[in-house]
């Protein structure tokens, strides 16, 4: 077996497909993109060496159609498939089907994915392996009475979660016993739709929990290392929007202990390739195994920023059978990194997804600023796929400098044509508790008043002045265009000239 993959099919779209394609290009491996009819123009199609249409826009008929993807890989002469995150990335049966077709699945074995994918079974195995877990139901529960019993035993609040869950889908928090029924019903329905399994389980909802995860890398030769933690507690709708590393709570000793637990978790299921072990950390800095994400994580770039390690290139090398190029002692951390997720959504309207066509796009630049995106002017943002438009990642020498850099970069990131959460992210970065590092997964809910405060009087004045200035300009532009269309007599040319001069 060669120590390099021959040709990789990237079974994904958007920024993560772009991310993986770039790694292939840099590693000197030819790449194949797949695309649905909605994505013919997409950046990932343009950056790949080859591209294959795999069906209509709905994911079930394209990016989730495993058999089409495997067929495309075989037809193009690929020897491997990278699933990205989402879609088929945590589908153990797909991983097995890829292997059965004689291809390399760039990720863990299907067996390890199934072990971890069933959150109920994973909890049991981790408990047995000595990895600390949160209190909750012993297994899956499928009637309300049992849910009520467990909730009473471990005490409210509790979370009702999809056994096959991930990405914040199929999760409901219940603080009042009266809401258990409704929450059970919605979690089950969402789980059914997202994962084709309505199985749910109950877990203690920790008091002010922080969501801290550990990145691991495991090769085929039994080496498992961790790359430190990521703090992911800033969430809305149970989905992360800001992540950072290091976590202010984690000192060297705690990082070592969490790292060892994560490595133990990976070893327990015979893990291979990149993965992430998620923990909930309570106010007393106890950590509890939450779940393992058996795939590349959205927020992996912050780890790359502080360690200097290219996780996707490591994935490609591990999949080719190479041993890890570095040991645990070679992993060092430099500075502080933050990621902000730029989403097409309307924070003022319950963060509901927004749609549109990107009219103008300005990406930030400069030192230690990284943009991972599949964005371009003219791109249609529609309802078929995830609302994540781009990830903005900064690194600096310390947390305060990283926050300042992130604010600077967010202010340069201008998107028109679709509503985004950029302004909201900027507001988060100004909240005192965030600056102090004092936050948990309830942060956004708790700071609603500040986060949605109206602009200050000074800002309001500026906005009013600029609104009128722009309205005035747009009127000028309209009349100019009307004149151009109409031809216009000599006397009316002056307005055109006046406008044209400024448009120079």
């Amino acid at each position, binding site marked *: 077996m060669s120590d390099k993959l021959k040709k990789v099919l990237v079974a994904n779209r958007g920024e993560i497909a772009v991310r993986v394609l770039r790694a292939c290009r840099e590693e000197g491996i030819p790449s194949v993109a797949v695309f649905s009819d909605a994505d013919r123009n997409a950046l990932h199609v343009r950056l790949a060496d080859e591209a294959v249409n795999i069906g209509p826009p709905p994911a079930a008929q394209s990016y989730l159609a495993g058999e089409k993807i495997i067929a495309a890989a075989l037809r193009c002469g690929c020897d491997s498939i990278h699933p990205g995150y989402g879609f088929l990335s945590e589908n153990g049966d797909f991983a097995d089907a890829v292997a059965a077709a004689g291809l390399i699945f760039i990720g863990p074995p299907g067996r390890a994915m199934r072990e971890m994918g069933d959150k109920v079974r994973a909890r049991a195995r981790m408990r047995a392996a000595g990895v600390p877990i949160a209190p909750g139901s012993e297994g899956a529960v499928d009637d309300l009475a049992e849910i009520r019993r467990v909730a009473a035993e471990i005490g409210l609040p509790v979370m009702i979660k999809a056994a096959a869950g991930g990405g914040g889908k199929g999760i409901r928090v219940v603080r009042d016993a009266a809401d258990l029924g409704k929450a059970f019903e919605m979690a089950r329905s969402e789980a059914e739709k997202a994962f084709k399994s309505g199985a749910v389980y109950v877990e203690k909802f920790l008091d002010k929990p922080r969501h801290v995860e550990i990145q691991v890398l495991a090769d085929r030769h039994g080496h498992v290392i961790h790359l430190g933690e990521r703090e992911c507690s800033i969430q809305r709708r149970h989905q992360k929007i800001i992540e950072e590393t290091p976590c202010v709570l984690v000192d060297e000793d705690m990082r070592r202990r969490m790292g060892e637990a994560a490595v133990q978790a990976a070893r327990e299921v015979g893990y291979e390739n990149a993965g992430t072990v998620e923990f909930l950390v309570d106010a007393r800095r106890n950590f509890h195994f939450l779940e393992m994400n058996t795939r590349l994580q959205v927020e992996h770039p912050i780890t790359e920023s502080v360690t200097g390690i290219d996780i996707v290139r490591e994935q490609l090398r591990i999949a080719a059978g190479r041993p890890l190029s570095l040991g645990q002692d070679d992993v060092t951390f430099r500075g502080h990194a933050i990621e902000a997720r730029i989403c097409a959504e309307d924070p003022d309207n319950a963060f*509901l997804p927004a749609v549109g066509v990107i009219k103008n796009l300005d990406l930030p630049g400069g030192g230690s600023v990284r943009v991972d995106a599949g964005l371009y002017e003219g791109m249609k943002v529609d309802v078929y796929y995830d609302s994540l438009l781009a990830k903005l990642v900064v690194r600096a020498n310390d947390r305060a400098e990283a926050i300042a850099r992130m604010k600077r970069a967010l202010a340069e990131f201008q998107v*028109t044509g679709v509503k985004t959460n950029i302004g909201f992210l900027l507001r988060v970065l100004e909240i005192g508790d965030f600056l102090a590092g004092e936050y948990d997964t309830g942060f956004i809910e708790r700071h609603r008043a500040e986060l949605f405060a109206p602009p200050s009087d000074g800002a309001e004045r500026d906005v009013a002045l*600029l609104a009128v200035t722009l*309205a005035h300009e747009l009127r000028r532009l*309209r009349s100019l265009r009307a004149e151009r269309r109409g031809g216009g007599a000599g006397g009316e040319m002056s307005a055109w000239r006046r406008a044209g001069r400024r448009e120079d």
Partner: protein
Amino acid sequence: MRYFVRIGGKELEVDARERGRGLEVRLGDRVHAVDTAVVEAGLKYSVLVDGRSFAVSVDGDGRKLALIINGRAYQVEVEDERERAGRAIGSGGSSGGGVVESVMPGIVRRVEVEPGSRVKAGDRLLILEAMKMENEICAEMDGVVEKVHVADGQTVEGGAPLVTLKAPAEAGPAAA
């Protein structure tokens, strides 16, 4: 030209007149010198207000504008005096009735009210699925459902009316 700008709940009156290559803009008792340069017509501008620099992107071309100013988005409504005068003559006093519109395209998963239902602000009206998430669409005010415009399973466009609510005052005495 006199303009009326609505930001959040407030309305401000602003006067703008061309002066040399720029604008002279009056707001309250202060007058500002504004110099505007077109980066991309209709989309991107560089505006200097008394020498302070603003990078402004704009979306929209009617009364409602979305401005992005140094990364922050603002929804504003701007009307000039002629438009306001025209509107005052045109339409009398329009309803103000509460039509809940779909803020995005999606699929209606479950309508949970029917005409006549009495709802409180925050009560769920229906569930709309978009981008793989179930989104609860809730009432923004107390009222009574006057009309339900959609049915379960229906695909809707952004801006489509979903439910019409009447304020309790409009709804007459409590039904039951």
